[in-house]
């Protein structure tokens, strides 16, 4: 037999390039797991960038009358810190988790629209890079106007061309429009996946709570992010074409911008926080060895939060001077949202009650969230009281409140989720020893940084001001707050080192290291490209319990 050598045929060995081939694979991938990892790595990179920005802010505020940063640089840093953490860390890391976990949890082989998924990630990536490219236009580098310095909320008329010349604000506007398009694409995709691709037997009432919450969150993204996109388009028309939407000198309204921004901005808080609740609802039952307490109530509470959250936005605007009727409405609705969140908190406690609690790293983070979210919730209800809000609006009390939500609750929940699902993604367990160092350092650092800010705020320290005067009783709170950052940085370093080290040297995890119950633990770690060789069929909310205990399946009790 003669062998004919085709001119194009190259052997696999010749073709494989150690860098370019994997790079090409990652660039053109449409696999939901790879895109999920890309989202998460992208977000972690920006977490480091946003963290550096926060560190610089705290160095500047460590002592009174400091001149480490100029006032303008300080404005740039708090603008970019806020924008980065919300749009380039929070949104993409949660999109990454949703991408990775949802198809596995519902027993699907991929998302509904894999190419749209890839589009969503790369658009988000481009928007983030564009926004941060504004740093390169700094006067010292390219003689432009540098990075945006209008605050992450971009209040009019400060953003109007008359007040911010140069292109800094345009980078912010266009960057966020593009990131928003990515978010919408991702949300359409994930929600469609959950609605149309659940495996046989997975009724809505049997979906894992994380998937349920993710479905609600995607609908909230669709309803909340596009108003921001719309408002940004109007602002862009003002800046680029001379329209007058927020131009007060031509009859435009600056308050209208605030309404538009917070119509996005407040649901956004829940868009970020609800997936954190989803992580807790997966971690706490597994590490308490009990089924989640009150599953239907948890679902109902999630949907209630989704609806109420779109009617609370103007509690950010009590100091603007709205009518008493509007103030009353938004105070009541804001108080009301505490009810379903409180229900959730009690359901997690009910899950832990009488359970065999395993205090491994994911559970440690989850327990810390319960305590810190309680503080965040209580200060939130305090701020919903209009006269209290008038007193403390735009002070460090508000800063402390929302950092207890976004760091003390959300970031802690994300850390827990990383420790929980890392073995599924990589096939290796993260180090428990480093994990405990990470947990305790971050717990101490976080509370040292943000508890004192409540007191600084009550003493009258305003936000967004680059320094403060001595002898007003503010020094000690600010110094302690800045010292806390050192602990957080040390904890963050332990986390990053753990991520990198465990990838090669972590203990081999196996398919189901936590003895968990949802479908992602039914496949290998890491899962194959097709997720499941044979699509599973489920009969209850805990299919792997049924698999491990066929004599006592869950559907008898649901």
């Amino acid at each position: 037999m003669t062998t004919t050598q085709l001119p194009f045929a190259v052997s696999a060995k010749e073709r494989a390039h150690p860098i370019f081939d994997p790079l090409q694979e990652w660039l053109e991938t449409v696999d939901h797991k790879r895109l999920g990892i890309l989202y998460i790595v992208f977000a972690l990179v920006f977490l480091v960038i946003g963290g550096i920005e926060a560190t610089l802010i705290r160095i500047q505020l460590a002592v009174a009358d400091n001149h480490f940063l100029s006032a303008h640089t300080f404005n740039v840093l708090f603008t970019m810190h806020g924008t980065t953490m919300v749009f380039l860390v929070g949104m993409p890391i949660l999109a990454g988790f949703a991408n990775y976990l949802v198809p596995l949890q519902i027993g699907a082989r991929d998302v509904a629209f894999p190419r749209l998924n890839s589009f969503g990630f790369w658009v988000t990536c481009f928007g983030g890079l564009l926004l941060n490219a504004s740093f390169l236009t700094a006067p010292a580098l390219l003689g432009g106007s540098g990075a945006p310095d209008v605050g992450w909320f971009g209040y009019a008329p400060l953003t109007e061309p008359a007040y911010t010349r140069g292109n800094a604000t345009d980078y912010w506007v266009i960057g966020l429009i593009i990131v928003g398009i990515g978010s919408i694409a991702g949300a359409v995709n994930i929600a469609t996946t959950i609605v149309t691709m659940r495996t046989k037997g997975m009724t809505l009432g049997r979906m894992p709570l994380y998937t349920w919450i993710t479905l609600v969150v995607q609908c909230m993204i669709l309803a909340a992010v596009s108003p921001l996109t719309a408002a940004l388009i109007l602002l862009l028309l003002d800046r680029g074409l001379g329209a007058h939407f927020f131009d007060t000198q031509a009859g435009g309204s600056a308050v209208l911008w605030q309404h538009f921004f917070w119509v996005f901005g407040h649901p956004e808080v829940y868009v970020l926080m609800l997936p954190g609740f989803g992580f807790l609802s997966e971690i706490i039952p597994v590490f308490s060895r009990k089924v989640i307490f009150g599953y239907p109530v948890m679902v109902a509470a999630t949907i209630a939060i989704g609806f109420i959250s779109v009617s609370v936005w103007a509690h950010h605007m009590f100091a603007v001077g709205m009518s008493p009727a509007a103030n009353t409405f938004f105070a009541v609705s804001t108080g009301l949202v505490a009810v379903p969140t409180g229900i959730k908190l009690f359901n997690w406690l009910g899950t832990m009650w009488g359970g065999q609690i395993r205090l491994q790293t994911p559970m440690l983070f989850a327990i810390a969230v319960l305590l810190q979210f309680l503080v965040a919730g209580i200060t939130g209800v305090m701020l919903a009281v209009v006269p209290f809000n008038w007193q403390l609006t735009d002070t460090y009390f508000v800063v402390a409140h929302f950092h207890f939500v976004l760091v003390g609750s959300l970031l802690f929940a994300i850390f827990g989720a990383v420790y929980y699902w890392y073995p599924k993604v990589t096939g290796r367990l993260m180090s428990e020893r480093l994990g405990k160092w990470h947990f305790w350092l971050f717990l101490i650092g976080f509370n040292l940084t943000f508890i004192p800010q409540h007191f600084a705020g009550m003493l009258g320290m305003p936000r967004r001001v680059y320094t403060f005067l001595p002898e007003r009783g503010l020094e000690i709170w600010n110094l302690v707050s800045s010292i806390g950052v050192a602990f957080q940085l040390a904890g963050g370093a332990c986390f990053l080192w753990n991520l990198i080290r465990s990838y090669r040297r972590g203990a081999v995890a196996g398919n189901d290291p936590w003895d968990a119950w949802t479908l992602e633990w039914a496949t290998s770690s890491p899962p194959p490209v097709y997720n499941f060789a044979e699509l599973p069929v489920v009969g209850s909310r805990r299919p792997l319990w049924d698999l491990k205990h066929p004599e006592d399946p869950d559907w008898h009790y649901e």
Partner: protein
Amino acid sequence: MTAIPVPSPTPPWTLPRRGPVGILLFILAESALFSVFVAAYCYYIGRSLTGPTPREVLHFPVLMTVCLLSSSLTVHLAGRALANGATARFLSYWLATVLLGAAFLAGTAREWRELIVVHHLTIHSNLFGSTYYALVGLHASHVIAGMVMLLTVAAFGLAGRVRPHHVDRTDVISIYWHFVDLVWIVVVTVVYIIGR
């Protein structure tokens, strides 16, 4: 993996099709987008500091409205024809939709030309100009996006490549086109009836 035990008998398992679900979710996002433009329009009615005012320059666009609304009917009939396997009838209804959409856009172009050249109303003139061009322009850009999709399918149709099983995909475009028409009813009400 051994099979997970399930209660028997297992009920039949059907889920919605992904195309319609996806486009409906996208329409949810689009509705929120339009809501902000409409809210801005309503808020600024009568607040312009200078002229021209809507009453001076706007005329109710009867012909444009008739064209766009009837195009919803033709696109629906096209889909039904395709589902029944009548590809020739599908193509003629589809092309009628394209023509009606084009007529609508021509109407918009004429109106804008008159406003800009005769009445000197631009986006920069006053709040009416800003809100009018933003809202009507946002809608028109959605019509253009719809036209691109309609024309793509029309090209495949003329090449004889559209088969009855493609109705899943033409349905998605059809739903989007109905949404664009629905938004036009809101725009007409706000701009040409309430706003005048």
